[in-house]
């Protein structure tokens, strides 16, 4: 049973996966599949967002996501403005609300925000006329990452329904795991998570997953293994003894990967800490779809921008 796509998105913001219905998720993924084709054309551009202005407000370091959004915006013919914390008014002590209001005075249509604090996009959405897209808010959500992960699985497997997806690593500090658990469980996948007990947040299972402490129990017979980066910069205090011991217990090695299904996909949202949570032989191995994830990221972000701009589920033409 596949989910029927919604005809349009209800909200003009994308603040997280949590507010989305399965139909809306399906609509975004279906639209993203069409968007993939644009990248294969000799002229990789459609006029869908011509005359629209997008501000990329990145207040936390990011390479992949920022570039991915920018490419997506440009392929849709939007005008883009890039803002980063260093060398900006933020360093002079301006508050987020004031920064956003000033940007809004220039009448952008979209604000794509990456921010170290959970809820920052929600705060902007309450006061701005522009559509707000959450490109990662602290340890809360990263909805376009989960959408691109879902698209990657779907393209390889045809459907998310019934897929056994194991997500392993620093669950406490990961926005990727929150968005992925919400999305995948909503779309009928069976989600397992594993990590050191000291990095499993309370009530994690209520997001829609089964919680394991031992990695082996989570990845056994899995269709997909998704590794999370150990977020050394977000550990206020050490929550596990050493990186060495972490590798020992939680890294995805070729030996461990054998526990999963033979054709199990290996995913990672990047940036990878090679030799910490993932062994290079796996990261670069035949089961890895890590670079496909990056490619699909552009298509998903194009779909999100297109749909939030009022696009409906019909084919994109030029």
């Amino acid at each position, binding site marked *: 049973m596949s989910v029927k796509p919604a005809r349009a998105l209800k909200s003009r913001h994308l603040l997280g996966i*949590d507010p989305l219905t399965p139909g809306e998720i399906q609509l975004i993924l279906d639209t993203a599949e069409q968007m993939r084709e644009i990248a294969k054309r000799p002229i990789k551009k459609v006029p869908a967002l011509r005359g629209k202005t997008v501000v990329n407000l990145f207040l936390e370091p990011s390479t992949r996501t920022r570039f991915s959004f920018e490419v997506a915006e440009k392929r849709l013919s939007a005008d883009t403005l890039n803002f980063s914390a260093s060398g900006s008014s933020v360093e002079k002590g301006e*508050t*987020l*609300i004031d920064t956003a209001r000033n940007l809004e005075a220039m009448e952008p249509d979209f604000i794509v925000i990456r*921010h170290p*604090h*959970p*809820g*920052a996009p*929600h*705060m902007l*959405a*309450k006061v701005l006329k522009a559509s707000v897209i959450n490109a990662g*808010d*602290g*340890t*809360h*959500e990263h909805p376009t990452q989960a959408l691109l992960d879902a698209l990657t699985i779907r393209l390889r497997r045809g459907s998310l329904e019934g897929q056994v997806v194991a997500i392993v690593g620093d669950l406490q500090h990961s*926005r990727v795991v*929150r968005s992925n658990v919400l999305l995948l469980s909503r779309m009928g996948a069976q989600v397992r998570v594993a990590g050191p007990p000291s990095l499993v*947040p*309370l*009530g*994690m299972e*209520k*997001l829609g997953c089964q919680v394991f402490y031992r990695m082996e129990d989570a990845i056994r017979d899995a269709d997909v293994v998704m590794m999370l980066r150990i977020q050394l910069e977000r550990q*206020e*205090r050490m929550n596990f003894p050493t990186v060495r011991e972490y590798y020992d217990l939680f890294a995805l090695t070729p030996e461990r990967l054998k526990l999963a299904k033979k054709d199990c996909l290996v995913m990672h949202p990047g940036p990878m800490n090679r030799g910490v949570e993932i062994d290079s032989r796996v990261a670069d191995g035949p089961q890895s779809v890590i670079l496909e994830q990056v490619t699909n990221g552009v298509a998903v972000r194009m779909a999100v921008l297109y749909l939030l701009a009022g696009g409906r589920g019909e084919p994109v033409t030029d």
Partner: protein
Amino acid sequence: MSRLLIKNGRVVDPSQKLDEGLDVLVVEGKIARLAERITDKDAEVVDATGLVVAPGFIDVHVHLREPGYEYKETIASGTRAAAAGGFTAVCCMPNTNPVNDNPAVTEFILARARHAAAARVYPVGAISKGLAGEELAEIGEMVRAGAVAFSDDGKPVVSSYLMRRALEYSLLFDVPIVDHCEEPTLAGRGVMHEGAVATRLGLRGIPAAAEEVMVWRDVVLAELTGARLHVAHLSTAGSLAAVRQAKAKGLRVSCEVTPHHLAFTDQAVAESNYDTNTKMNPPLRAAEHVEALVEGVLDGTVDCLATDHAPHHGDEKNVEFDKAPFGIVGLETALPVTFDLLVVKHRMPLSRFVACWSTNPARLFRLPGGTLKVGSPADITVFNPELRAVVNPEKFFSLSRNTPFAGKRLRGWPVMTVVGGKVVYRRA
């Protein structure tokens, strides 16, 4: 001097086990007579038909912010907010700038109060110098200057040694030691209650255990010392269990609960989409804790209610949730929030409700008031148990507007507040 006659009200005074229709005559700032159908030609007459007439409500946990943070609140504005909320007296916490850790600051507060306050002000002195948690402040000197209790509120007394000494030393004056119970290494940099809601919102959690560990420690020290321990803003089921056990043992342990910890769960943070007016310390707790707190108020384990009125400027709150200061204002919403919840919804007897806001705090903090006995100061709270109104922060007397109750329709509003025989508030 003026005479005031409050006629036809329902007088609820737990200190005299009174709950009946009586007139109250106030002469020269004191309760002169309580009887049916008093007539007095010279008195200003107030018709209190349908209203409850109670001994003045006392809020033992308020931050008046003066000296030092007058842009958030002053003794004048805070006590006006108190009067408008039905309070005739407040105890103000010492985390001002400079800290109220010496008699000069205590005297300053009392001098400002004499000059500008609408309600009585009872300073709470600091336990430790500068709230640094290291050396005892001059508790004796501050008692002499007028401090009624001691607390490092806003911060816990981390050192168990210092807490023991503070409790022991307090025996000399028989004043309560009020602790903000929070084990800081467990609380970490948390911003809301640790649990499923925090996990979903990606916010760092403050576990219930951070409070409970400290409450249990304090109970142990209260037993060791025999001193009077008062647990400020108690917020978890486990803390309540500790207090219950202490009381069963006959220890001199008491506690307060705030209106917001009874009225909201941690779900409010999610429902409000990270509204910083749902951020306070201790944080709004999960439903099982809130249910236990309501139960504790109803069964009497909780001695009194207190607001933890914590004014902050709008600019300070209009930032990311992580960055916002903890705390909300409470004086002007406390009475209807708790009346609506406890008396209307949970059918708490009115006399017990009045005791929680008046008689009990007066007894625990040894304050004048909490009674309408003839001869006592005429501190009177009159409220309308039927009046329904919507909370409008724009109309607050407080300088700050940081409330999660904005827009809520509540029942049971104060209509007149009398301090020492003088009407300090009358609802328009």
